[in-house]
């Protein structure tokens, strides 16, 4: 045991999860060939920023990156948590990118985590902070994470390319996660949402809301979409607008969809992101997001496709009991999560596809990662 046995993996694929699972399972890893054949090899700024974030919340972790950035060596330390932490997220990805692993890490820390993240709050690529507030935190509560102290405060909005947003995340420690039997997806009782506009006119919000409501009107009367218009410093540094929608079901499931529109950010290569070149008008954005939400509802399952990965991870980390959850079609990210979970935690899920509804039931036993780091009282 004198020498550390590193687990070797390749590629930048699911870097977040690998780091997270490595930190949770205390298995040191080496990631090789990170974009070795790319024009610009090595780690991207957001990945470096993520690694810094991991280092900030943990103690005694060892991180080595080689000169070209194509190899990363990570030996996890103790997850500490702590108060009054500040992290500046790289602007190549939004805060959602960092939040996804961070919330899981925070639950298993030694102390409750309270961290201020600065960067881009809304972005079409990653789940927005609004979605985190409305959906992700509810999923955590299902697993027995105490509700008090579980909070995400949006202090300032910020969109691409210059960001300037700021959120305050507080996560309590969970003694242990309880296994869930979460199969009943229920029926959608209400749809809630929030639109925001930063440094632009509220007209954008109005038209987004109008378009979204127009789609829901066929199905449900109980639709409320609130507005969040920001100007001045809380609006960040770039102009943009966006929408985040949540459908709530009778059984307490939350299904979300969101997007944001802003100027495209310049890539490292100096070109603009291709997809960002054409920006949709606000009505189309609203309609698209609403349609996407309906699509998610149609797929079924207790969570939307974005949160599948998180759900599986939490299932794998809970007590030694059997969890059973039902999700819609597995997203590629979820599949990747399942594989990573098997690789790092050794937890296999039994998958039972349900032909009639097109959903998949997943069964697993948790590893019972309890309070390994906690101090005995």
């Amino acid at each position, binding site marked *: 045991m004198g020498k550390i046995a590193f687990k070797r993996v390749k590629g*930048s694929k699911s870097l977040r999860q690998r780091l997270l699972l490595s930190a949770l399972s205390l298995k040191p890893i080496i990631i090789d060939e990170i974009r070795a054949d790319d024009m610009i090899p090595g780690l991207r700024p957001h990945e470096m920023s993520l690694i810094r974030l991991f280092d900030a919340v943990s103690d005694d972790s060892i991180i080595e990156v080689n000169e070209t950035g194509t190899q990363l060596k990570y030996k996890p330390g103790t997850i500490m948590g702590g108060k009054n932490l500040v992290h500046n997220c790289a602007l190549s990805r939004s805060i959602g990118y960092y939040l996804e692993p961070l919330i899981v890490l925070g639950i298993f820390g030694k102390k409750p985590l309270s961290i201020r993240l600065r960067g881009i709050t809304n972005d079409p690529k990653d789940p927005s902070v609004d979605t985190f507030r409305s959906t992700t935190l509810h999923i955590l509560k299902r697993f027995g994470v105490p509700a008090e102290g579980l909070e995400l405060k949006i202090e300032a909005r910020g969109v691409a390319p210059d960001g300037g947003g700021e959120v305050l995340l507080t996560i309590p420690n969970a003694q242990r996660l309880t296994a869930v039997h979460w199969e009943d997806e229920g029926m959608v009782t209400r749809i809630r949402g929030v639109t925001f506009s930063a440094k632009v006119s509220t007209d954008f919000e109005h038209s987004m809301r109008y378009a979204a409501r127009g789609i829901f009107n066929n199905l449900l009367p109980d639709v409320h979409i609130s507005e969040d218009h920001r100007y001045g410093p809380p609006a960040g540094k770039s102009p943009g607008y966006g929408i985040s929608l949540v459908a709530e079901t009778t059984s307490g499931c939350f299904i979300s969809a969101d997007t944001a529109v802003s100027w495209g950010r310049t890539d490292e290569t100096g070109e603009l992101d291709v997809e960002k070149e054409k920006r949709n008008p606000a009505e189309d954005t609203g309609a698209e997001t609403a349609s996407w939400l309906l699509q998610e509802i149609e797929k079924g399952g207790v969570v939307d496709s974005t949160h599948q990965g998180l759900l599986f991870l939490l299932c794998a980390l809970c007590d030694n*009991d059997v969890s059973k959850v039902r999700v819609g079609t597995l997203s590629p*990210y979820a599949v990747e999560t399942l*594989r990573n979970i098997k690789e790092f935690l050794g937890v*296999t899920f039994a998958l039972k596809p349900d032909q009639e*509804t097109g959903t998949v039931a997943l069964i697993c036993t948790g590893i019972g990662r309890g309070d390994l780091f906690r*101090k005995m009282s």
Partner: protein
Amino acid sequence: MAGDELMPPQRSHRTRKSGPTMRKKSEIDKKKRGVSDNKQQNPRAFAVKSGVKAKRLQARSAEKEQKRIHLPTIDRTYGEPPPFVIVVQGPPGVGKSLVIKSLVKHFTHQNLPEVRGPITIVSGKHKRIQFVECPNDINGMVDCAKVADLALLLIDGSYGFEMETFEFLNIMQVHGFPKVMGVLTHLDKFKDVKKLRKTKQRLKHRFWTEIYSGAKLFYLSGLIHGKYSQREVLNLARFVSVIKFHPLKWRTSHPYVLADRLEDVTPPEKVQMDKKCDRNITLYGYLRGCNLKKGMKVHIAGVGDYSLAGVTVLPDPCPLPSAAKKKGLRDKEKLFYAPMSGIGDLLYDKDAVYININDHLVQYSKTDDGTEEPTNKGKGRDVGEDLVKSLQNTKYSVDEKLEKTFINLFGKKTSASSERKLEAEDADLSSPEGSDTESSKESQSGDDSDDDERNDSKIKQKTEIHGGRMRRKAIFKDEVGQSDAMVRNKNPNLMQIVYGASGSSATALINETSDDEESDNEEFFKPKGEQSKNIGGGSDVGYVNSEDCSKFVSYGNLKNWKEKEVCECIRDRFTTGDWSKAALRNQNSGAGDDGEDDELYGDFEDVETGEKHHNPENMESGANQNEDAEAIERRLKKLALRAKFEAEYPFLPASFNLFNNKSGLDEGDDDEGGGNNPDNSQAKEPGYLEKLKEELEIRRQKNFLELNDLDEDTRIEIEGFRTGTYLRLEIHNVPYEMVDFFDPSYPVLVGGIGYGEDNAGYMQARLKKHRWHKKVLKTRDPIIVSIGWRRYQTIPVYAIEDRNGRHRMLKYTPEHMHCLAMFWGPLVPPNTGFVAFQHLSSNQAGFRITATSVVMEFNHQTRIAKKIKLVGHPCKIKKNTAFIKDMFTSDLEIARFEGSSVRTVSGIRGQVKKAAKNMLENNAQDGIVRCTFEDQIKMSDIVFLRAWTTVEVPKFYNPLTTALQPRDKTWTGMKTFRELRIEHNIPIPVNKDSLYKKIERKEKKKFNPLVIPKKLQAALPFKSKPKDVPGRKRPTLDSRRAVVMDPEQRKAHAILQHYQLINKIKTNTRKAKEKEKRKVHQAQKAKNEIISKKRNREERRERYRTEDKEKKKKMRRSED
């Protein structure tokens, strides 16, 4: 049972109506029922008078009640429990093996020649036990304490307690304290009954103080024909078999196997090449604790950490009897398995069964070479023997061979390859019955890219057992309903796609384009490769580096949700839609999932093993089809209640067994109507605890139901190997010493390592020196700790927490107090207890356990600090500023200490300012610091800076490899300072300056008396002038005066004087009288003493004489 009718009717038991037995029994009975009818003599005296007092009493009783309650834990073991381990421990020569032999004889009616290794026996219909004899050295004791469910502590009654017993008790206490029973032996050495009784009493009370008062202590009075008396063994066996075990935290969270068999499976040629090559071994034993997940690492006590190369479930060598209703055990079922003792005749391996035949029983009809030695191995070969051998040599059974042909059916892979496949499969986990078509098919399909080819012309075998004969039914795939096959194939497919063989194209599943349900079904999963091709994304490398994004959005193919008909398809997912349809949907997925599952996985017959898999729900699923989730919840609650009830009254006939599959459920429903016992228990105490217990029980039942739904392979994949199964663990690259020095009398403990427990780190523990260990422990002296499954040597640093939260290093542990210990080692979860030793040798005097402790937390850094005093001398003084040298060696160091306070010996306080490199003109010397003081200091002053420095805890730990050396050799690790000093004859270093010396101070100089010149005196003012007062010659008036009393005064004075005189005389006379009296009494006493002494002597003389006479008489008689 016709025979029973012929038997004469047995007389029924007549209960005692009077006598001590009856009284005792009735008392116990009353206690059980909670009735106390001991009439108070004066009930009014104890009536409640004060309301406050009554309240207080109530509060006290409530508090006591709450203290009794423990947080309920969920029992995650399903199915048959593994045999309970009964460790028999005691000092050498106390009769351990004899107790085991007697108990084995009692349970199985078989004689055990010798006790080596664990001995498993079936002791009852639902109970198996495993006896382990605890070896006498400390390593064996530690390992035994970790596995024991019940410890029988054997004590030599004629000698008394020995240290081993207490050591073992202490080891057990830190590792979770299993049940303990004491057994006193050698009681026949007492001749005097009274002395025997006294000794028993004394030992019992000593035992009670150590465990708890009322702990069971057994007395084995003596040997009869070299065995303990049958009656006593029977009693002991009864106590052993009714004992209940409570779960211990460490063990319920870690799987472990107490190996009862070890085989060396290294290829013989490898061993021949190099005798000291690393070996591959297999260990066999029951899995205990919790489920063993695949890929878990294990620690073999005394060897090290290994990953399991293979785990196989073997059929139970000592199974419980069938559940048929009958009283007691048949003789046939009194099984008994002890491979290390060389008893069990059958050995089941993964793919073979070995029959042990004693050498003299082996007979060949004819031997070729004429030598009449039938048992030679490998010299002479007979044709028949050859034939038999060749038959034995086949590696695979007929079924498997058949399958080989089947594999040859498609593809040109030769049998070799198929054999390889089979081997691969063997390495995998497979069901105990060697052949399984299904799994081989699956493994095949993992490689095969196209499923369609398989479907068209495939013959499946279906093996069943009909009337003792194995029938293999050939089933053509076409016969099976196509849709059914699809559905059945779907499940492994999805799992395979997700977890598929890594070699195959990494496939992810995407379902993006799906407008109608049909196409959805067909393209439910689409390989990622295709998708990336569609997008135009590039090669495999690109995939490896694909973007890390949880959101998966493609707006391109969104449906037009504005259209009504499109909306209608999800109308039922909204509350505005059809609720019944939605409920149906939920039911399908939730509760009704079972209904569908029945078609999928329900009551199918396993083709490989020929056994039928019944789903517990399955049978009633028809009835329960319409049940919603609530009903299921209700049923689970009912089950939970039942289980709880059973747990409370375990002695009732077990009419309901959870594992009697569906019958249990049915019965549960029936019982609910008739018996209302569960309701009673609920009505009694619907408190928080009850609710919690119920919740846990429901959870347990849910787990059980969910897992029951899965097929065997998936189940193992998901929950791991279940406790109670007999496992074969294959471990590769074990040092050869383990095999060479293997001693079956020492337990081989294989313990699973939990998450993060194979990493090493700093652990902080609360430690207390054992009160029986003579010496205190020294910081940085290596100690041997037994923690979790491991034993290792490590170097602790002791500390204590100051009031300000600082951890101050201690050089030695406190005498009677807890302190903190920080050490480096493989991590264990907080709250794990451990025990520390200094040496392991058995020939130590005194108590070997040096400390007991519990881990509080682990860290990746240490926070221990110790005092440091930096000493400096002034080199230049300017008013209140001084330049101090010798305190620091570099300017960098100074920078670290800027602003800290300093002090001189004389008590002048100051502050460190800055490095003074530039301020001193000529001095280029480093490490001179400028300090300011509250007053000017002198050049002769010494300046101190008092600070704290962190203490490094050595990163050292050395696993004990006691199994890799002869067991009688003591393991030696790092030596303590003291040992090294003694070994190398090095004296303890002495710093002369640190020695205490007598302080010699210069005598103070005596000054001459002050003389003021006359001239000066004259000039001084009067105030300052020395006053020359001459001495008085005449006495003062005060002393000269005479006192003249009044006549009354005089009278009073006289009376007082008289009284005093009288009093004095009185006391004097009384004292004289008392003296005389005492004298007389003393004389009398002396006289009496002399008389009694004389009498006693005579009496005794008389008695001895008669005794001697009688003895002589007896002697004479006996001689006659």
